[in-house]
């Protein structure tokens, strides 16, 4: 079985802070990490590899620095890695991104494609289903459990108030939730092998078959009109009180606001 896992290198948004004076984002020194949902997707693929044997290929679209997450994936146990990187892909929205990634995946053997539900920098959750559409294969989103038997994947598909058990024939695409599993750690030897014995194949726009009008900024229907740091509302009053006094203070405020 050939499994392709799509992973993205993202800034650790938990460590992005706002400059209190300028009101801009401080991105300097924010570490880059493998997107958590993608890591869960990779772990799911590696578990299938462990239990039934599979060849796991990781694919990432991004700048050359994204090499690091592909090495990390191989240090966890992925077999090979492809980096889709070209200036021509720059400025892509989800539609152009998914078009590009789908064109790359078309060149690879695949039975099962796993993507994370969403990336923590963009939070769109759109690229996975869009890749499936471009490849004309079924997708099942929000997987909490993945089982493979023969040519059928059984997925526990999460909704707000329920689960569906979905059976889908391969080839298909599954989007994984970080709740799916606890991803394994790399091993030191795996890291050394990933850098010294394995390679990351870089594909540029010349290596994939794709319509130039459908990639990059030009192929993106959406445009960022403006972006701005989130404004917080004006600060209220802060008092230092304990026990009885604090309780009285809160009660008074709730009465003022007609809450009780």
């Amino acid at each position, binding site marked *: 079985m050939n499994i392709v896992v799509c992973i993205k290198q993202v800034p650790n948004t938990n460590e992005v802070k706002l400059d209190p004076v300028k009101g801009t984002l401080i991105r300097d020194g924010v570490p880059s990490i493998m997107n958590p949902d993608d890591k869960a997707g990779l772990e799911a693929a590696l578990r299938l590899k462990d239990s039934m044997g599979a060849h796991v290929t990781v694919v990432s679209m991004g700048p050359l620095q994204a090499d690091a997450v592909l090495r990390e994936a191989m240090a966890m146990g992925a077999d090979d890695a492809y980096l889709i990187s070209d200036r021509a892909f720059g400025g892509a929205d989800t539609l152009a991104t998914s078009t590009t990634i789908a064109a790359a995946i078309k060149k690879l053997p695949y039975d099962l494609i796993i993507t994370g539900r969403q990336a923590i920098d963009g939070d769109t959750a759109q690229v996975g289903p869009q890749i499936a559409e471009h490849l004309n294969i079924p997708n099942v989103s929000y997987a909490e459990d993945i089982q493979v038997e023969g040519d059928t994947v059984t997925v526990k598909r999460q909704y707000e108030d329920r689960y569906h058990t979905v059976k889908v024939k391969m080839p298909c695409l599954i989007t994984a939730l970080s709740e799916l599993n606890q991803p394994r750690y790399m*091993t030191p*030897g795996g890291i*050394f092998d990933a850098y010294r014995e394995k390679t990351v194949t870089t594909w540029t726009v010349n290596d994939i078959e794709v319509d130039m009008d459908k990639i990059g900024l030009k192929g993106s229907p959406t445009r960022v009109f403006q972006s701005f740091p989130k404004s917080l509302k004006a600060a209220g009053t802060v008092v230092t009180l304990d026990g009885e006094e604090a309780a009285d203070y809160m009660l008074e405020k709730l009465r003022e606001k007609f809450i009780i």
Partner: protein
Amino acid sequence: MNFMLSKEQEMARTLFHDFAENEVKPLAQEVDETERFPAETVEKMQKLGFLGIPQPKEYGGQGCDTLTYVLCVEELSKVCATTGVIVSAHTSLGTDPIKKFGTPEQKEKYLRPLASGEKLGAFGLTEPNAGTDASGQQTKAVLDGDHYVLNGSKIFITNGGKADVYIIFAMTDKSKGTRGISAFIVEKDFPGFRIGTKEKKMGIRGSSTTELIFENCIVPKENLLGQEGQGFKIAMQTLDGGRIGIAAQALGIAEGAFEETVKYVKERKQFGRPIAKFQNTQFQLADMKTKIEAAKLLVYRAAVAKDTQKIYSVEAAMAKLFAAEVAMEVTTKAVQLHGGYGYTREYPVERMMRDAKITEIYEGTSEVQRMVISGNILK
């Protein structure tokens, strides 16, 4: 000269850091207070290959370099010095001598399970009357047909009672002095071998430190490590490597205490402002950080020397001497900057200060390191 870690070393550091934060730090206080050996952590580390980082892949090790192993001990020791020394004693003292001096058969039988972490290793040199003066060995080994018979005892043995394989030193010919010492690979189940008293210690309290007792202990002849009489050389060369591990532990302790202190001085307010705003705090931090960086360079250089030089005794001795003294100084200052809270168990710096002290003592006291360094200068 290049002061950058390689990409693989950087990634390995991230791995060790994440593991330490997620798996080791949450247990550190409890392990210290209850003097409990963190067996669950050792099991996790075994699965991830942390117990065979610098060991060859052909024997089931990770095939990494000494510096990567140092990064592991350093990151673990930032949050828990107990866990750091378990890895260090196992790797440098318990496993390395078999890699370096073992026969192909010994490597197959012992290096393989030690490198994979399936078995834990330890090293027994120190005796009640043979500490800094290791030549005063009183444990005796007498050849009797196809086996040696060992009698005597060892003390202060790290991983004692937890290890499966022990490198034990004993006199095979007292008349030859240090040239009469031999090294043996002793399994925990060999007849006549038992674990004695467990020490109650000031620091690294989760580390199992015990006495080893040999009463007509039968060791097969093929478990002689190296040649008869080579034991002292094996011990000294092994300790050169071990000192790099302890230096890494000391460095980690210092860094851990420093990070806690930086966090604390930003939070703690006195006289209406965070104590980080006071020049005394600032200058203390500057000194602490500078010394940590200096120690780090010595420790990393010693690690690289181990992989690139035949002899690295001086590099290892300097690294351990300096890193241990920095650990003691930084942790003491860390407690001071925490004030009264620093003296309580509410903050980890008091544990770190207790843990730091041992790095000036074991695997050669600071005085021994000075002897090694000055001996080399004046030779």
